[in-house]
């Protein structure tokens, strides 16, 4: 199936509206780009759009009730809400160290979720 899609380029702030055509494997820019970099950006956006994912995870007995987390690599766009759903199931016990793996192979993406903050344990 061929699909025409308008992509806003974010390589620079001109923000060209690039019209692309793709059937999932083949890719073509129809019009709109003012430079070559726009073609590369549009290709990735049309064939395999990915985003870094950041959110928070619940922490028990911590100085703060949440720890911030990130994906170690950009996650395929259509998997974002699936990954978020898995992350929401997690509750960690303090202390949590920045860089600690919170979830391995999130939603089968082979991408891990790691903490980006250190949360100390609350003194009782």
């Amino acid at each position, binding site marked *: 199936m061929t699909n025409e899609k308008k992509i*806003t380029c*974010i390589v*620079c*702030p*001109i*923000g060209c509206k690039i019209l692309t055509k793709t059937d999932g494997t083949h890719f073509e820019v129809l019009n709109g780009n003012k430079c070559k970099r726009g073609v590369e950006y549009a290709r990735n956006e049309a064939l395999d759009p990915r*985003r*870094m994912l*950041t*959110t*928070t995870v*619940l922490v028990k007995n911590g100085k*703060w*009730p*949440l720890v*911030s*987390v*990130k994906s170690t690599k950009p996650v395929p*766009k259509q998997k974002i809400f699936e990954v*978020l759903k898995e992350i929401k199931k997690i509750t960690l016990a303090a202390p949590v160290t*920045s860089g600690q793996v919170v979830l391995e192979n999130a939603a089968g993406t082979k991408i891990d979720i790691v903490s*980006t*903050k*250190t949360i100390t344990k609350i003194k009782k």
Partner: protein
Amino acid sequence: MTTSTVDVAVIGAGPAGLAAAISAKESGAKNVIVLDRNSWLGGILPQCIHDGFGVIETGSSMTGPEYAQMYINMAEKQKITLLCETMVLSFDKNLTITAVNKNGLQKIKTKSIILSMGCRERTRWFAMIPGDRPSGIFTAGVAQAFINLYNIMPGKNILILGSGDVGLIMARRLKFEGANVLGVVEILPFPSGLPRNVVQCLDDYDTPLYLNHTVTYIQGRERLESVTIAQIDKNRKVIPGTERKIKCDTLLLSLGLIPENELAGNTGINIDNTTGGPIVNQFLETSLPGVFACGNCLQVYDLVDELSSDAKRAGANAAQKKNLKTEKTIKINPGKGVRYVVPQLITVPGKTHFSLRVIKPEESKRIIINSGGKEVFSKKLAWVNPANMISFDAEIPNEILEKEQDLEVCLA
């Protein structure tokens, strides 16, 4: 009351304060103290959990908490005194700071002060939105703190007024947390936030952006029940018949930031009416000698990398203030197409770092520095955008300073 003496005192432990303090120490200041009223270090960064920080500086995209921790670690390594839960009440012209914390009143005598108090968010009263006063109206940054630090959801059906970066980032964050984001309303014909945030925070999740629109009425008895939006014309007048009532329980305001400069103002430091920050020279020194300004209380930055880089200059200058000589003073005025320029004053010739913001988005332009109608510097730019701060170095020749003729920075 406790009295202490330091070389450099920094007010505010956000990214600017930490970078300035580290740089002051590296530049020879022996005793450096950082004061912050919060219980944590890093200012706003611990709640900015998204990535995109430090790309220019480190080459990798860090999250806010990671970027802050990098500087906290450096500050600790440099043995800088970091004093949290300490509120600066005032400082005087002799550079004595009065602060208060759990141990009582603190008098801190210092050779230099660095102002790095950051910003506050504009509230509903800035936009003068008429209507009821129900609960459910928050500034975007407060909502960000609720969600990312305190695990509190501000609401379910949410409308955002203002397309600044914090508002855009919150639109995505709220979607991630299961809220229904009804749209972002922007009075200008273009978004105020960075293009990448428009694409990755709104377009990705099909969140509508209503440009040339504003909120005209807020309705709700206890909790917010609805918000009326309407299209505006070129003169920002509501176009009759375009009003539309949107049912929602929460309104987030992302109306921009106001540099926090009550402390500076109370001491008589001159403030720039456009930036809202102190008027500074090329050393980032304010009108009170020995007091320097950096970070968002000087001007609102869009990238932390640039903020830290400028803050480091303020820190180094604060540590070496004896070497800072003032020859003659000329003003730098914003001209056509330019909203503001920092620094506002030049007191020595030579390589000078400028930062500025333009008024509207345009393509293929030149930034020009004029001295009495004569061009002394010019830089080509493929595009300009108010959301992207422009910074560059320019050589200011001695003869310009000798003439004591003000400079104008404009767009052509």
